[in-house]
């Protein structure tokens, strides 16, 4: 008891002389560590936010109207031309290794119906809000950008194909061999889109390069992106002769694509899987 009293007196005298006790030192150290950790977390948070919080990031969305669609496959061809998808040629076609970012699927081939009825329909990447491919990618080569586009970083992809296995829509393609153009002439390729090497997975980007160009122009002009100017922005939408494909900002309630999404005709593929696709279909009476 006497010793405890002496200890207390010693601590009191240290305090009165301005000396730091061991407990205070520990407390100060812990506080400093907490402050540093909190600061770095905030800095990282700030880094990940958009540069101007007042500017709302759009959430790109695509509507495909099956009552307008002619199944002419113009969208498939336009997509391949725009995105430097090399022609498969007879060998790759015969061995079932062609690359299609957008493909017209025929449900009758397997004698079964789907949400879209018995008719064939063009199917691109669904750009899901909860993408399975992103979950399984071991190196973060596949991620969902702030604007809702599920992006594939070619250079980081290691070619494990886990994303292809995980995607319930089967909308990812793999470069089984190096891309080659007829006659070895790649002069017609689009300079805005990278040519993917052998051994990586690739997929629809909703023509991200076109979106970037439009949004950058709007930013320089200090004007908002006008909905009517981007309705046919992706190559598939631009090529569609019956204007069956509509593109726009799904987060803007006034955009055409948002209005279509709210209509009773909107149908989502494999909705029960709760992947929340941002590409949807329209079918039924207009």
């Amino acid at each position: 008891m006497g010793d405890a009293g002496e200890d207390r007196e010693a601590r009191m005298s240290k305090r009165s002389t301005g000396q730091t006790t061991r407990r205070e030192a520990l407390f100060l150290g812990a506080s400093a560590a907490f402050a540093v950790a909190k600061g770095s977390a905030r800095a990282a948070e700030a880094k990940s936010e958009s540069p101007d919080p007042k500017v709302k990031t759009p959430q790109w969305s695509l509507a495909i109207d099956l009552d307008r669609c002619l199944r002419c496959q113009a969208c498939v061809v336009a997509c391949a031309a725009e995105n430097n998808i090399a022609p498969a040629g007879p060998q790759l076609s015969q061995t079932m290794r062609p690359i299609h970012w957008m493909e017209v699927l025929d449900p009758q081939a397997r004698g079964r119906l789907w949400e879209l009825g018995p008719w064939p329909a063009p199917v691109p990447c669904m750009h899901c809000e909860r993408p399975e491919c992103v979950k399984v990618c071991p190196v973060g080569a596949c991620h969902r950008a702030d604007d809702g586009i599920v992006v594939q970083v070619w250079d980081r992809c290691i070619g494990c194909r886990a994303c292809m296995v995980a995607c319930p829509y089967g909308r990812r393609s793999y470069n089984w061999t190096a891309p080659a153009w007829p006659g070895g002439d790649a002069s017609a390729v689009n300079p805005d889109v990278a040519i993917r090497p052998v051994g990586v997975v690739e997929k629809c980007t909703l023509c991200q390069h076109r979106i970037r160009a439009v949004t950058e122009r709007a930013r320089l002009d200090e004007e908002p992106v006008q909905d009517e100017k981007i309705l046919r922005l992706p190559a598939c939408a631009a090529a569609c002769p019956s204007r069956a494909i509509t593109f726009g900002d799904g987060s803007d309630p006034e955009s055409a694509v948002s209005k279509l999404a709210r209509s009773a005709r909107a149908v989502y593929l494999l909705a029960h899987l709760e992947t929340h696709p941002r590409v949807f279909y329209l079918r039924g009476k207009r």
Partner: protein
Amino acid sequence: MKAGKLVLTLALLLAAAALGAYAYVLQIQHGEVVTGLRSVGAGGAVWGLYVVMDGCFLGTGVAVMAAACLARFSRDRAMEAVARIAMPSAIACFLGAALSVMADQGRPLAALANLSLYARPQSPMFVTFTAVGAICLFGSLLHCVLARRPDLAEYAKRPSAWQGLQRLFAAGYRGTPGQRYRRRKAGFWMSLFMLPALVAPATALAILFVVRPSRGVDGVLLETAAFLLTSFASGIALLVVAATLVEKLAGRDAGVGGRGYARLGRWLLFAVALSLSAIVAAEIASVGSRDAAVSAYGRALLVEYGDMFWVAIGSLFVAAAVLWRALRRWRGRAGPLLVASLMVEGAVFAHHYWLLVGWQTHGLALPYEPGVYSPTWIEFAVVLGIVAVCILLLLPAVRLIPFAPLAVDLRRMKKVRDVRRAVLTSVWILLGLVVSAIGLASSARVGTHPAMDPLIAGSPVIFIVGLVMLATTAALYELLPERD
């Protein structure tokens, strides 16, 4: 083994390895177009023989190593002999798993670099990448050397080409009662650490094999159980095969004996019975599912992959019958066990094959054309090369640490109180935990956006270093010099 047979075996193994290397060079040169793999939806399977073999190797290796850890808990001499055989077999399996998965990568060098820099714990492949490297390969190797140090100390006294290395690995071991006590304690804790650490990669692999976005939870759970149980059966079967081979090469010196075989046979029968039940239950749940797509897929599997399915079921059933008969009238002969084990290995391969490939060709949710998958000679050659490389690497290891035990009288032990050793070991564990936690947190993108790079470059490697530190705790505890 006679010199002539040994030279012939080595020549065959080298030829198989060379063929595998040639096939792999062709695959790298032309892309995976030379394999039988196709795009899912375009009528094929993107994961084929390589991933099936990865599942077989890793599942079997985990089961074998787990059996070795369990055998170390027992003080049965026969089980100790089984553990001695199991450890190098497991290491060979892990090596095979690592090589198989590398053979499947489109860009293998980018895979090594990018996994080291950016691997994400959210992906099941993170566990297989980190755990196979740190726990399975390194931990098992360390466990194997530590367990055999007394034998190595004895072998190092005999003149041989391996004497220098044997001396190095047995350095400091004098067989004092204190050292014997520490060895047993370190072995016990190492086994205890390894058991759950081995379950993680096996489970992650099972998830990769069975989880489909379009499947119900009940079917997935049953299929996961079937995958793990068949892997367990495959591991025990491999142990029987390895023990028979070792007994043939080293004679009765290996020490497995009739009792060891009988125990392995009972384990195998138990594992086969469980595997059969799980496979049948999973298939019934699939065919009888209320979800029409899942039910259709279950039926398609029975039709399209019926031969594989019935081969797997039939082989397991016959193996169980052979084992039952052999164990009821046990005469100490390993022959029937060996036959049953080989049947089990074939059945497990067939099971893993239709489990992985079947749903890719016939289980898609959207109305794609049904696919086909037939491995090409390139894939077979690469797999053959991998098996040959594993055996070739195993041969010098077996020469370095022979299976026959030399150290005797392990019972005399003396508990020695050593505070300095306990404190240093505790600090090392703590340090290992901190390093692995930092590596894991940074890999999980804590403090940054999920789509961005980790805050610390190479954080998956930091996580692996932490795991390696934890695995080396037993070595530190055992090898720290005594104070005189």
